[in-house]
């Protein structure tokens, strides 16, 4: 493995870098989730399903 304890194996990123990449993923998921929820509510308002 790596001699640098700060590096996350196997990507070779440091811990901070890996956390930053991860934060983009998390933020993206949150935004997409909220958008999807909102879109579903709006569709349900105009053309209700399940009832």
């Amino acid at each position, binding site marked *: 493995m790596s001699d640098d304890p700060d590096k996350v*194996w196997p990507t*070779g990123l440091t811990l901070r*870098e890996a956390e*930053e*990449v991860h934060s983009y993923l998390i933020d993206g998921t949150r935004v997409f989730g909220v*958008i999807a929820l909102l879109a579903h509510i*709006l569709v349900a308002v105009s053309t209700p399903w399940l009832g």
Partner: protein
Amino acid sequence: MFNYRSFALRKLASIGPKYLPFADVATEEVPLSRLLRLSLFQVTVGMALVLLVGTLNRVMIVELAVPASIVAIMLALPLLFAPLRTLIGYKSDTHVSALGLRRAPYIWKGTLYQFGGFAIMPFALLVLSGYGEAVDAPRWIGIGSAALAFLLVGAGLHMVQTVGLALATDLVEDEDQPKVVGLMYVMLLFGMVGSALIFGTLLENYTPGRLIQVIQGCAVTTVSLNMFAMWKQEARDRTRAAQMLEARHEKFEVAMRNLIKRPTMKRLLLVIGLGTFGYGMADVLLEPYGGQALGLSVAQTTKLTALLAGGTLLGFGYASHVLGQGGSPTRLGRTGALIGIPGFAAVILSSLGGGVLMFLVGTFLTGLGAGLFGHATLTATMRAAPKGQIGMALGTWGAVQATCAGIAVALAGIVRDVMLSASGPAGIAAHAPYNMVFMIEIVMLALAVMVAVPLGLGIKDSRSQTAGARSVTGTDQKSVEVS
């Protein structure tokens, strides 16, 4: 025993960097193909602009029967974000990232917002228009969600354009900047014209389902094109990341004040505002003017748009050529504004007995002038940008430019409507309200030229210094250029 785990991890590590969206090294030379790819973000910006200002404007009023006042407010919402471009640029300049990225995170965020806005927009519009069961829904749901959709798209598009242009400026050397600006403008125009044609064809037989398909297709295209444009453009940089961590930046207000205080900046921004305002007002009026004042058919006025775009393209091309050979951007910008004056004069005269040919010449001239002016002033802004504040300088350019263009379009419509309604049933000639607007444009352009005169002289002096500096070294150029 064969160690599967370490084998898999080693394989994974070896393919890693190739599939990461960041370049590993900042290459000295950026090939044209890479710049061409980067400029794709302008296509999505153009697409969003056309969808908002052109397509949805008509669809909301004609097919969805939304009250015109609500439509006007909705379409003005994205404009609210234009002044915030300066702040976006500043944020990306001072961004702290462990990966050493400054631009990519903001382009990604902007793309997300743009996508999100487009994703909910069709449903929001359908609810707003009371489609299906939505008739019984409370009014605020439709209005609120539509406003949110337009705000998201507007925020995303301003973010992507500001930071994208900053990234392009980061990537290329000073002498290549005119080429890049030309490319960016051409792609914006291409995106606008292309998507206008595509939206027009797709929405010819309007159904609610088709509206959803078109807008959401637009959302998917935006994300894919922006991802493709961004891929491996900005280098991952540990030394820069370390610098970012330690760097202390001046506050936004201070940075803003210093930027404005630069000798030519305020004047340059004023010129950009006046010129953009002057050219912007004509955008929406040339076609109806051709139809109402000169009696051209719809097919003929559509060709008119092609003529205007052709003139603009020629302007971009010529500006890239001249500025690439070291011409002064401010002087060229002044020429661009100057060309518009006889252009609009010809347009006015065409309805006063000059005939259609005069009109066509005028249209072509205004297109040419707008192309030269836009290209030259953006290049001037890029050149005047202090090294660490490129994003902020371009943000300020975008804020002035987008705000003025938006206000100009809105004002042109208002002036024309007021003139039309004031004329009463007996009426003034059909061309009078339009000519009024064109007169305002001539005045604005003349003002822009006048303000630009001392600017051109000042820049010329510093340019002669630059010519000396350029032969010595490429890296310190920016600091010399703005002296």
